[in-house]
């Protein structure tokens, strides 16, 4: 299967242009035409229809259809739209790029979505560490305001909405949509307990709220301009359109690449010269993470799998946030898994027991093994502790925790033990890391 030629650049078309974040460039490249079109010639349902037709899958990690999410919005006088720009999943850097390089596209997508869902106010929650992104996004909002795209009676359509850029303060868990809402309410970022399962029923300030990802929003203007059908024409099956994959790790050209969904395989993405350009130093792939560190790992035998949400899910992992981390054969798998566990331990919010205590315990065990004080029994102990957080260690996971950060903890540890048990045993027997 090959990509449509030429591959349309839907969200990254302006990346690399001079002052791509300014309104001048944006207007020159067709900016705010979609908003004008939506507000002046379409009803909100028509906009929502187009988005449904496009079958745009949420680009945040869970991959839930944007159109379906909108349709679940409970009718209520006050509705909010919140855009999730709290990108913190390790090795994911696509939203960072979009916020810094094309903030207007996000603003436009947000405004169109606000129109479609009838939001009383829209918030863009930006990860606090993206200081430059915050600057540019706020500047874009100010410019859009001056342009008449935000505020009262936008483009004379009678539709008004305000958009607030909200800075986060550094907590991975705030990427979870209900934790993000709590954080936006000025509280500790504790994910809310389910049910209600969706903020569309009860979200910000207890009102129905739609939470969408920044990249999803960036797709909206194109969909409105070109129609949902032409978006759906790209890609395969449920995986429609293009998508940014963030390639990192041991490749020659790490970076963000917008490719058509499901048309390329992992191998092609890694090896094609316009993308990854092959593994660093010509080494072999030992393992790779297909969709952010929460996802279970894949081995070299799965390199030929297509970049399709459903295919990856069928194989027991996920495309998640679209970040792919390649690890070559000189990588210590125990160390890699330990570092990922350490990340989850540091970022666990501490609300519910299994994640709070389990992450710390697993991290301590992993550290001990990596540093040479492991015991053979620790491997079963690790797996059992993991099992107590995500019963069955299946994917998609079951969980004993409130949110999905819990079952993300075991995925790397369980993958590493499953795939590289002998490497763990070497650490234990030799009393240290063989790669040092």
């Amino acid at each position: 299967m090959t990509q449509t030629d030429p591959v349309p650049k839907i969200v990254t078309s302006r990346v690399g242009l001079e002052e791509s974040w300014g309104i001048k460039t944006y207007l020159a490249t067709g900016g705010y035409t979609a908003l004008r079109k939506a507000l002046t010639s379409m009803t909100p349902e028509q906009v929502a229809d187009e988005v449904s037709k496009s079958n745009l899958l949420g680009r945040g990690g869970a991959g839930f259809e944007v159109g379906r999410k909108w349709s679940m919005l409970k009718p209520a006088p006050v509705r909010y739209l919140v855009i999730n720009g709290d990108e913190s999943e390790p090795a994911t850097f696509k939203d960072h790029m979009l916020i810094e390089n094309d903030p207007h596209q996000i603003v436009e997508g947000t405004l169109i979505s606000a129109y479609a869902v009838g939001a009383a106010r829209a918030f863009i929650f930006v990860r606090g560490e993206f200081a430059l992104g915050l600057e540019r996004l706020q500047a874009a909002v100010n410019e859009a305001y001056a342009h008449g795209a935000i505020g009262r009676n936008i483009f004379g359509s009678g539709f008004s909405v305000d958009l607030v850029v909200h800075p986060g303060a550094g907590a991975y868990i705030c990427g979870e949509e209900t934790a993000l809402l709590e954080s936006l309410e000025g509280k500790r970022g504790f994910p809310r307990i389910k049910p209600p399962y969706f903020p569309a029923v009860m979200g910000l300030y207890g009102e129905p709220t739609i939470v969408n990802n920044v990249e999803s929003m960036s797709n909206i203007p194109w969909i409105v301009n070109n129609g949902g059908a032409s978006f759906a024409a790209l890609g395969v099956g449920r995986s429609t359109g293009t998508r940014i994959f963030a390639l990192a790790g041991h490749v020659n050209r790490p970076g963000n690449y917008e490719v058509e969904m499901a048309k390329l395989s992992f191998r092609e993405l890694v090896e094609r010269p316009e993308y990854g350009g092959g593994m660093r130093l010509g080494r072999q792939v030992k393992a790779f993470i297909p969709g952010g560190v929460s996802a279970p790992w894949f081995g070299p035998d799965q390199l030929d799998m297509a970049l399709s949400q459903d295919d990856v899910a069928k194989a027991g992992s996920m495309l998640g946030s679209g970040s792919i981390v390649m690890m070559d054969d000189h990588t210590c798998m125990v160390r890699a898994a330990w570092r990922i566990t350490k990340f989850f331990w540091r970022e666990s919010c501490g609300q519910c027991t299994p994640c709070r205590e389990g992450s710390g315990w697993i991290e301590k065990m992993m550290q001990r093994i990596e540093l040479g004080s492991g015991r053979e029994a620790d491997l079963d102990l690790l797996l059992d502790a993991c099992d107590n957080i995500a019963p069955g260690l299946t994917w998609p996971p079951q969980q004993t925790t409130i949110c999905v950060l819990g079952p993300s903890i075991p995925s790397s540890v369980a993958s590493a033990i499953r795939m590289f048990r002998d490497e763990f045993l070497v650490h234990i027997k030799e009393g240290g890391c063989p790669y040092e």
Partner: protein
Amino acid sequence: MGAFSPDMRVRAEGLIALYPERRSALIPLCHLAQQEAGYLTRPFMEEIAELTGTTPAEVYGTASFYDMLHTEPVGKYLVGVCTNIACLLQGGGDLLEHAERALGVPAGGTTEDDMFTLEEVECVAHCDKAPAVQVNYRFFGPLTGESFDDLTAKLRAGEYDGVVPPHGTLIRVQRENGIEVPLDEVLAERREMDKAKAARKAAADAAKAKEGN
């Protein structure tokens, strides 16, 4: 009495006005306070509590949840070395070790001249330039031991003053317009929209029913 300077107080009140509920402004206000004092001092937390209608204990509890908010003094530059997976694979761990030796403080420590606070940070979404370093939330990478030393030397010399601002994450983030559309006005409009929507739906249903017949 207030900890905020008068013009900052104005900015703070402007921030509060952006949200339907006062408490939402708590985190942005903490950023503002750090801009003034470098970290969240107790008078600032007390004033934020007063501004957001919470208690100081709640402000402290909330602020301590977040990595970027410091309730203890930090250096002029917060140097965060990423050691998460993408940077680890490219030698982030070695870079951190180098940084610890070069600055003479362990991760989490502040140099004696209060210039740098070294942190081991989680992924800063700069993975294509791994190993990455953030200084007051501006990103640098890929760095080696030498380029790291070069960076700190230049920071000391003040060569990056324009690029790397002090602690205020929001220092150049300023909303030029307040909220122009009051929420109740928006709501009235949304109700109209919903009414029209319902009418359209009823018409469509009627048409469908007619077709069916």
